[in-house]
């Protein structure tokens, strides 16, 4: 069965610090990869996605992620975080067989102003 591992459950950063959230998945076949964000009191929103093509994917609000197939990884990055980036971030994977998303446990990011 597929699984997704997010390396840190809680991350605290100061504004303007750089962010990298790790995500690794276990599945040997073709995958689609996603990062979702959940701001306090809001629903899950798609931050960025990878289906195919350029492994460096740019999303909303200055976020990007890099798919490294050999490492089964899809890490999320942002060069300079803002207080408004405080949220919970989920990495998710689905396979070519359907839309069953397998989520990681999430990383709670708190940005101090």
């Amino acid at each position, binding site marked *: 069965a597929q699984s997704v591992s997010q390396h840190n459950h809680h991350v605290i950063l100061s504004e303007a610090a750089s962010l990298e959230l790790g995500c690794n998945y276990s599945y040997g076949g073709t995958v689609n990869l996603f990062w979702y964000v959940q701001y306090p009191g809001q*629903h899950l929103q*798609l931050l960025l996605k990878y289906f195919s093509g350029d492994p460096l994917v740019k999303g909303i609000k200055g976020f990007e992620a890099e798919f490294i197939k050999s490492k089964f990884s899809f890490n999320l990055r942002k060069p300079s975080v803002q207080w408004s980036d405080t949220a919970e971030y989920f990495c998710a994977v*689905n396979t070519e067989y359907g*839309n069953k998303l*397998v*989520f*990681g446990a999430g990383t709670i990011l708190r940005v101090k102003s």
Partner: protein
Amino acid sequence: DAGVTQSPTHLIKTRGQQVTLRCSPISGHKSVSWYQQVLGQGPQFIFQYYEKEERGRGNFPDRFSARQFPNYSSELNVNALLLGDSALYLCASSWGMNTEAFFGQGTRLTVV
């Protein structure tokens, strides 16, 4: 454009009761999926429906069932509620079987 809408937003039920949760997908989307999210964990897949047929089922007991209607809206039913069913239930809609999913606000179910 309206996003994915779920009702009710909050629900309190007693052990042993039955509950029905509802979801309206984004207009034009033909697939609806249901997820359960308990505190401290990521959402877990329960069902996917596409064109009114079940296309996937997660590792949940038979007490959980769902259906999709001709207008593509969906209901999730849970029978014989247990305390452990307390969770946020999320509905996601997508245009196709394997396209990006958009989530609703969820229904917070508390079983007492």
